[in-house]
């Protein structure tokens, strides 16, 4: 097994050789990555099931499909993305070529999490490859079957001179971060993110942080409660609530709550049957540690369980659970839940709910369910979050045109589609001047004078027009 520095040396040499620059190389690698996913769909589904008891449907939808879509999108568009972007000029630079070149950064590091161990590792890699970089890929050791599979498959399909998988736990990751990279892309928790940024600061390495937070879900005003309940349940209990953009908690009035709880009961039964533990469509908690963490929350909460609450330690199973009478200072309102537990807070006025949310850290996503557009508008305009979605959950992150990322404590930077390409590129400003018009240049040379200054002000003004044109 190569040491970190050997791996990095190999990748740096690969990058320096210029092999990742041509469009053909990038498209070929992306096509090979597509083949990796398509050829090994069965093993991928199996590994995800081993790690998270992820149902085949969820694996296909949220891991395989989302990755293949982004790959198709990148393969079709990378030729356009790498074109120089010509920009508007002022009079002094009218005859010059002014454009922005997208250039690769070098050797980047991608650290993936365990909850969507394929998607959240490969989607950044798509952007990195499209942008012409080499990459060290560090899957999460917590989702160990996927970790193993990724380590086996990547070298089989992608160029070993340009892309390498490094495995290990917290210690190995810490050691890996001592090295110098040209960009670090981290998906995970805030606590670890701080140490990633600190390590990056030593080398002035730019970072992208995809973190989490408590994504609030407002339900106010006139509402089709059945439709809302369907979408809420789907978004919350997908992957057993272990999604960075899962609705973490609900805010609504007492009346809405009283209509919502029976609707949730109906939908949960519709989705997972009378005994959810037997449903093949419900995932499990990833590890004993996280199971214990969630059970402790259920123990300490002052809220009342109205749906679910059952668990099975051996199976790492927690039933889809809903609690009411949860207050702002409840233990469930502390850290991100990241599990199949949905607290409902009763707040009569939308404004007070907004104030509550604004007292907390900016979340990765914010949801509003309402048939009244004024409710949607008010909530959106008075809050901040990575992304915003009304009358649904999670799906905003499946659109390649939208940047996916956080703000404040939920993260820094974004990706998906073209945004991933931009994240891993340097936008180099280029100006190509000619030799002529040296007299015009003379305006800026000493010895200075009032006249020269007047002319210069005019020619460099952003909206100067020229009667010669």
């Amino acid at each position, binding site marked *: 097994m190569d040491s970190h520095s050997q791996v990095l040396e190999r990748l740096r040499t690969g990058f320096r050789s210029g092999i990742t620059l041509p469009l053909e190389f990038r498209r070929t690698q992306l096509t090979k990555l597509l083949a990796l996913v398509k050829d090994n769909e069965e093993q991928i589904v199996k590994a995800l099931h081993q790690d998270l008891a992820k149902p*085949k*449907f969820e694996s296909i939808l949220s891991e395989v499909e989302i990755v293949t879509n982004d790959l198709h999108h990148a393969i079709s568009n990378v030729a356009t993305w790498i074109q120089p972007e010509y*920009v508007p*000029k002022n009079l002094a*630079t009218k005859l010059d070529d002014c454009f*922005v*070149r997208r250039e690769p*950064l070098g050797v980047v590091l991608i650290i993936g999490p365990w909850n969507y161990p394929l998607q959240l590792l490969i989607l950044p890699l798509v952007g990195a490859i499209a942008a012409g970089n080499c990459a060290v890929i560090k899957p999460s050791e917590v989702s160990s079957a996927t970790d193993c599979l990724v380590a086996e498959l990547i070298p089989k399909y992608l160029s070993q001179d340009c892309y390498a998988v490094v495995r290990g736990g917290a210690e190995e990751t810490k050691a890996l971060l001592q090295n110098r990279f040209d960009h670090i892309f981290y998906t995970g928790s*805030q606590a670890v993110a*701080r140490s990633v*940024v600190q390590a990056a*600061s*030593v080398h*002035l390495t*730019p970072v992208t*942080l995809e*973190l989490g937070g408590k994504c609030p879900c407002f339900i106010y005003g006139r509402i*089709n409660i059945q*439709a809302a309940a*369907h979408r809420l349940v*789907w978004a919350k209990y997908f992957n057993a609530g272990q999604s960075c953009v899962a609705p973490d908690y609900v805010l609504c009035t007492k009346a809405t709550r009283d209509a919502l709880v029976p609707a949730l009961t109906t939908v949960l039964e*519709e989705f*997972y049957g009378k005994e959810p533990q037997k*449903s093949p469509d419900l995932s499990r908690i990833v590890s004993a540690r996280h199971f214990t963490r969630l059970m402790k929350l259920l123990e300490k909460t002052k809220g009342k369980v109205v749906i679910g609450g059952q668990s099975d330690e051996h199976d790492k199973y927690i039933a889809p659970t809903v609690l009411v009478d949860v207050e702002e200072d409840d233990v469930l309102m502390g850290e991100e839940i990241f599990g199949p537990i949905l607290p409902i807070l009763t707040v009569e006025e939308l404004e007070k709910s907004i104030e509550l949310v604004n007292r907390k850290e900016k979340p990765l996503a914010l949801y509003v369910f309402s*048939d009244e557009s004024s409710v949607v508008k008010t909530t959106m305009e008075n809050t*901040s979050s*990575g*992304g915003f*979605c*009304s009358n*649904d959950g999670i*799906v*905003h992150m499946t*659109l*390649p045109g*939208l*940047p996916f990322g956080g*703000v404040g*404590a939920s993260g820094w930077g974004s990706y998906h589609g073209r945004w991933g390409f931009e994240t891993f590129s*340097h*936008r*180099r*400003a*280029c*100006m*190509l001047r000619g*030799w002529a018009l*040296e007299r015009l240049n003379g305006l*800026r*040379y*000493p*010895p*200075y004078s009032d006249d020269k*200054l007047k002319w*210069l*002000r005019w020619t*460099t*003004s*952003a*909206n100067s027009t020229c009667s010669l044109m």
Partner: protein
Amino acid sequence: MERQLLQQAKEAFVSGRARPLEFRLQQLHALQRMIMEKETEISTALKQDISRSQYDTPLLELISIENEIKLAIEKLAQWAAPRPVEKNLFTISDEVYIQPEPLGVVLIIGAWNYPWALTLIPLVGAIAAGNAAVVKPSELSKCSSLLLHALLPCYLDKDLYPVVTGGVSETQQLLRLRFDHIFYTGGSTAGKLVMEAAARHLTPVTLELGGKSPCYIDKDCDVRTACRRVTWGKFVNCGQTCIAPDYILCEPCIQGQVVEFIRETLLEFYGADPKCSPDYGRIINQEHFNRIMSLMEGYTPVVGGQSDSSQWYIAPTVLKDVPPHSRLMQEEIFGPLLPIVTVSDMEDAINFINEREKPLALYIFCSDQKAIKRMIEETTSGGVTVNDVMMHYTVSSLPFGGVGQSGMGRYHGKHTFDQLSHQRACLIRSLKMERVNLARYPPQDRRRARRVLFILLELFHVFVTIIMDMSVFY
């Protein structure tokens, strides 16, 4: 004190008054008035700080600030508007767009070499994006710092845009506090400390740093014109410019010419004794004066070399045949010393550049389009100007920033606005069309899949019909 000012700025931000476009425009207009009305005072402060000539002030600072403000005023509505994005079949009846939003309270740490431009241009973007901002000008440009502290509250909202003066200790205090973005202009060493401090609060940063910006002069180009342009860029502000051409790379056969053309140009610009020219500046302080003088130790300049410690004056100086490993070639000069390093050809120059840290700017003087293209493609840098120096800075539609050790992030024009905004991804759906959603709900069995396929086909048919109908009109 810093904590209190931040708290006030935060409260003012939370009150929402920085958000409406009218307010932002009003503040930008006020800033514009400040620049126009106080030009004389600003010039005087700069003269005292860094011996800036009367003309260099508008030329190098005020014109660019004015242009940035004008552009922001003109384009604000457009920049702040929601930006629609492409939809797919499932979101065809939804609104999908990116909404730029303010971040909150931004910390702007300015630099001493262009104390007004490097502090106010980021502020223009911060205001345009709807943020509050704590402005910390550099204490090394003391008069400018004090003047800004006195002026800004007379024109702008006092609570939203406080100015903090002081030195290292005050800056450290500020960096302990939590901001929503930190915009820092300065050296790489301090840049690392800023990023490290920002890590604690997970605050994103923009770092506009420096480095050694190489300047390659090809033997087959118009060397005389190249030297005029290089001379201007190098010695303006006495070499204290982050994008000044730091050193020249050329083949030995033209080194002599380069020296002579620079000498000629210097005579034209500053006269026989630059010390007497009103257009030639001084070094900012004793520490930097000593630093720059010590870089010259052991080398005999071919042009200039004179100095006067009492005035912090160093003559425009050129040194030739400088060895690559010399101290002159290790750190950013940031002064009026221009070393020439010889290379055997363009390829040698490219290797030389690539062996070193990525610079903030790269300058290429060459008449061969193919060679220019090659050099751009085989190197990297924050920005490039070909056949001139520094001019890429002046086009606000070009992003200005570094890469690697020369910085992270970019600004100028709309780029500042974007850098200091959060681009919030928005999907506005309705609770209708629930049938389409059935595709994704459990239980996942074959009956459901068939029904979904049917719905998809139905939807596709509707979509195609709409397109066909629309095409009838064209």
